């Protein structure tokens, strides 16, 4: 359809195209995932020595593992967002992306979706690994754990991409992303740890419904804030 082609893709399609582009780059090189997996393994290693397995058994995995997991995920999202926005800095590809005949908010949604899927891939590797290393019942916790992880990863990806866009506009700004993203995502982090704890104890999600509401509200609020402000961050 030539008429449609001249207008460019619609917002949803554009979102998917941007995300697919990032995922294709990621699947070719695995640069971002490799860095995130290795980093998270080092986090597990450090915590493994900080609390040995006897301490974990004594306190119960649900006391310690959620904190360890979300520490790893939060720092990994810093790596992932830095990488996702850093890609666009090479060879002026950000300019090319901005010239594309799509809405700028679709660029945000696409970048965030790409980061979200990369982080989900990371979590698919790390959750089983953490179950092996820290000895808890992943299969039993999974039905409650999966929605919890998904809900909180969405927020991390959104805020990570928005703040990552801010820091890529600065020449030496990469180091600033962690001091912006980690404090700003504290509500998400607290909620994530509480909900993961409840899931691992097998308490069911009804017990933490107010936390889930906080996380969902956070996701929605920052989704709209990012849609509105992403364009302002990127424009020249």
């Amino acid at each position, binding site marked *: 359809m030539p008429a449609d082609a001249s207008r460019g893709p619609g917002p949803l399609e554009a979102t998917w195209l941007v995300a697919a582009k990032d995922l294709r780059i990621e699947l070719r090189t695995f640069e971002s995932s490799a860095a995130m997996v290795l980093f998270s393994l080092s986090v597990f290693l450090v915590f493994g020595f900080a609390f040995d397995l006897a301490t974990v058994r004594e306190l119960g995995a649900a006391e310690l593992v959620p904190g360890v997991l979300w520490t790893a995920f939060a720092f990994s999202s810093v790596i992932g967002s830095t990488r996702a926005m850093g890609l666009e800095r090479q060879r002026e590809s950000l300019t090319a992306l901005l010239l594309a005949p799509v809405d700028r908010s679709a660029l945000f949604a696409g970048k965030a979706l790409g980061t979200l899927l990369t982080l989900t891939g990371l979590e698919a590797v790390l959750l089983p690994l953490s179950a092996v290393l820290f000895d808890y019942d992943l299969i039993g916790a999974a039905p409650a754990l999966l929605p919890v992880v998904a809900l909180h990863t969405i927020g991390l990806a959104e*805020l990570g991409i928005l703040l990552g866009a801010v820091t890529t506009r*600065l020449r030496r700004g990469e180091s*600033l992303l962690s001091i912006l993203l980690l404090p700003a995502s504290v509500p998400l982090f607290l909620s994530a740890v509480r909900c993961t704890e409840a899931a691992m104890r097998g308490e069911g999600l009804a017990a933490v419904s107010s936390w889930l509401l906080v996380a969902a509200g956070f996701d929605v609020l920052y989704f709209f804030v990012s849609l509105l402000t992403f364009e302002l961050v990127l424009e020249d």
Partner: protein
Amino acid sequence: MAAGDPVRRIARALPGCLLAATALAMPGALGLVFLYAPDEKVMGAVQRIFYFHVPAAMATFASVYVLLAGAAGYLWTREERWDRLARASTELGLLFCTLVLVTGPIWAKPAWGVWWTWEAKLTTTLILWLLLAASVLVRSYADSRELAARLGAVLGIVAALDVPIIYKAVDWWRGQHPQIFRPGSPAPLAPEMKHTLLVCLLVFALFYVLLLVLRIRLAALEDRVAALLERAGDPEVTAP
């Protein structure tokens, strides 16, 4: 210089008047704090930090709201004066937040026996400090004033919207643990204490407006220097 313009003249005289007013009111406030207000029965003399700690906290939150207004105004209108408001508020917020964070532990140590507790108000203030400090850094890292204004405004909005959520989240988080300090404890203030606090709030409000006016004026002057340098553009003028 339109010196004859009455609005301009008032604007020029404002900092001087505010400075005089604060200079007059400050000794009065100090006198009330140390001579008029009674000792708190449980905490003793150290409770008097309260009279400047609380107004500083209020000035912090006032700065955050003004920052939100300035940031939204800038992104909406793209007029530089909104950015000057946002820039001034970020710095003032950082200043007052630092004062709150330093005086809080000094009060907490003798009153509660610990320097710090991970309670909602304290934690929120600490996170707010981090966010404000990071946005001051981001502004100073930016290559152009226009970029600094845009990034600063976006971060200001993110931070200001985050503060109430952080407060609620930490409050719930701590809710399941024993607390040293219960925020909602209805400790009725003696009337002398109330009067003293009101006067101190007034003094801090004066200070806040004074610093805000001066900081905005400084921002306007800095913008003018940048505009002059841009206009002149050639090396002999640009050289300091």
